[in-house]
């Protein structure tokens, strides 16, 4: 695929969506009430110590771990936040997309780039600082999905 990016893509262009529909007929709804998104995308590592490596301890990469964390302004009227909170309380999986642009656009010629997969909401605490707006710290981790294609993150283009 040929990329057409000629300038940095600013973080505020990134979009998060959750699937309010079904797996087969998804309806991706925007989660607009969120600030910085902290992404963890790394492989676990294991050290190997054997004599054949000329005195070096070597490391091999294992499975890839993927998670996203962000903060939202606590808003009981926010439909997306309410939907995610309901899923968290019910311990139900949620299908999400984290894209570098709108699902209808993006930086590349054939749609936005990012990760799409089945996640579990790992945390949903409401922070109540005395002199600040109430905030909700949300986190999602890639989890065991309900479709073969979703056991690992699928790509829309490449990440």
């Amino acid at each position, binding site marked *: 695929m040929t990329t057409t990016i000629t300038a940095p893509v600013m973080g505020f262009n990134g979009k998060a969506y959750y699937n*309010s*529909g079904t797996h087969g*007929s*998804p309806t991706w*709804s*925007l989660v607009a009430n969120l600030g910085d998104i902290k992404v963890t995308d790394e492989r676990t590592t294991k050290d190997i110590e054997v004599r054949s490596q000329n005195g070096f301890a070597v490391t091999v990469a294992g499975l890839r771990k993927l998670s996203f964390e962000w903060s939202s302004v606590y808003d009981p009227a926010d439909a997306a936040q309410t939907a995610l909170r309901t899923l968290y309380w019910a311990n139900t999986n949620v299908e999400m997309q984290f894209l570098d642009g*709108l699902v*209808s656009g993006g930086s590349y010629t054939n749609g936005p780039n990012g990760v799409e997969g089945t996640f579990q909401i790992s945390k949903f605490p409401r922070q109540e600082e005395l002199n600040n707006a109430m905030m909700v710290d949300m986190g999602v981790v890639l989890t065991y999905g309900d479709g073969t294609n979703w056991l690992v993150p699928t790509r*829309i283009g490449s990440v």
Partner: protein
Amino acid sequence: MLDYKKALAKSLEGTNEDQKYVGVNLDAWRLCLENASVPEKDADKKTLDELKYGAGRASGDHVGVRLDQAKMVFSLLA
């Protein structure tokens, strides 16, 4: 009144086959689903029902839907 068919046509404009999803205005999408004729195939009926379910629970001003399913809905509009 919102010209939902025109809105969906505009969303589909310029899409290509490599594209998996298309963004559509949520209000227009809901009207498209409401006014779509009943599909002949059972599989398409099921898809239409699922899309109505998803649109009913969706929020925001736009949603992303599968390009092939958006085209199917467009074909069901008079």
